């Protein structure tokens, strides 16, 4: 199955990855060849088969709603690209 240019552009937007004009064809070819591989699944009869989400059918554990972590803002922000007054900085969103 081949994948159209428009579709690549849509995927780029959804996944927030800029794709250069010069690489669209290459990306499209690679994606198409992987989709061709995974399209083998379509021929399998899976009627009545439950989708598997955990090998041991484990369910999410619950815990008491108690504070379990201490605030480590300084340690966490020490590795941030840009911070100010304890906040993470990004380019201005609202004028």
């Amino acid at each position: 199955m081949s994948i159209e240019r428009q579709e690549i552009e849509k995927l780029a937007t959804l996944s927030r990855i800029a794709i250069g004009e010069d690489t669209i064809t290459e990306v499209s070819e690679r994606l198409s060849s992987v989709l061709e591989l995974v399209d083998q699944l379509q021929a399998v009869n899976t009627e009545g088969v439950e989708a598997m989400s955990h090998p041991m059918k484990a369910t999410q554990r619950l815990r008491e709603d108690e504070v379990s972590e201490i605030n480590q803002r300084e340690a966490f922000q020490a590795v941030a690209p840009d911070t100010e007054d304890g906040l993470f900085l990004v380019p201005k969103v609202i004028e």
Partner: protein
Amino acid sequence: MHNLTIAELVTGLQSKEFSSVELTQHFLARIAKLDANYNALITVTADQALKAAAAADERLAAGNAPALCGVPILHKDIFCTNGVRTSCGSKMLDNFIPPYNATVVENFEQAGAVVLGKTNMDEFAMGSSNETSFYGPVKNPWASDSVPGGSSGGSAAAVAARLAPGATATDTGGSIRQPAALCGITGLKPTYGRVSRWGMIAFASSLDQGGPMARTAEDCALLLNCMASYDDKDSTCIDREVPDYSATLGDSVKGLKIGVPREYFSEGLDPDTEKAVRAALAEYAAQGAELVEISLPNTGLSVPAYYVIAPAEASTNLTRFDGVRYGYRCEDPKDLNDLYTRTRAEGFGDEVKHRILIGTYCLSAGYYDAYYGKAQQVRQLIQQDFEKAFEQVDVIMGPTTPSPAFKFGSKGDDPVAMYLEDIYTVATNLAGLPGMSVPCGMVDNKPVGLQIIGNYFDEARMLNIAHQYQQATKWHSLAPEGIA
């Protein structure tokens, strides 16, 4: 000292034959001298290692040393290490210094192990050849023109080249077993939920599992004793007692029923690799095991199912890399969207980007049921194959990979050719089963791996079975040229 096993090192340290500082200096010197040939390490932590070694020597002198006290190891650069750069093989995290330790790292610290550094890997563990690492490929110590396998290629090459006696690794579709096979060492992917994933950078959360690499099964048992634990912080960790994996190594394999899946010996398997694996099976038969031909009919669907599920989960997990809180950020973003899209375009390598796009496609509106839903159903069929097989047999054995280490660049243009490298390994991840690879022969001076697949939480039995093979054979003790 570098030819001693971890078991021998523990004895040597405890009987004061040598100190941990001496041992650590010895391995650091080997890394400094030899790693330029392999590129197995991304970061060397010499100062911290020597400090930890001195502390270990004090505990050894005081006589209250824990299990791995003073033993040097390496961590795959996917495990967060407090204060030490953790890159995951990516430009995205080239500057990332975690403020905390992964549970696995914490466990080794508690056990007194000395961390020499962090090993190279495919970017975000996506690859079977180590060619996708931002830090350049790792070279196979057996053949410098060939890949070490991936994604844990750095850990595997380092252990094979005796730069460390053992290392941690992770396996999402074969990333412990395939490089272990290609580098001629022993590696174990435990049951899903056996080892905590907390602080292990996520690739595909329903498949990822950490495990040990060493030269022998006996050493893997020692490492797994420390690595396996129940962890409240990993919601998929299974609360189950951790046995002493060393205790049953000596058990006999007499009467063991070994399932030999027909589908693992079909088209695509290199004849010499098959010969080596068959010889290993014959050795088990000679020790009194019974070989039973079985069928895992959905084997062929495991790679297609995997390449839906793994990229889908990766595309979700990797949204966190946005250039805001840590890691790489592009220069002069003009607005928030530009910050996200350029950071991710520049910070991720091609293979990672392609997998994110594939995953996004499989999860996007209108395609979810046809791809992700379908793959999860097929996954159930694959698990049922194993369930049926384990009604008849105790373990399953076959080749780890279709052929020995391939040359750099030989699968570069075709992603599907590379993905088929995982044909014998991905099914166990999809089913959540434990699998291991044990050296079982040489083809053109390159190692061949025997894969052992066990039932859930049967790691002790698998290590025992591997150990019994290693008691009777010498493949695990071979060293690449110029190493010993």
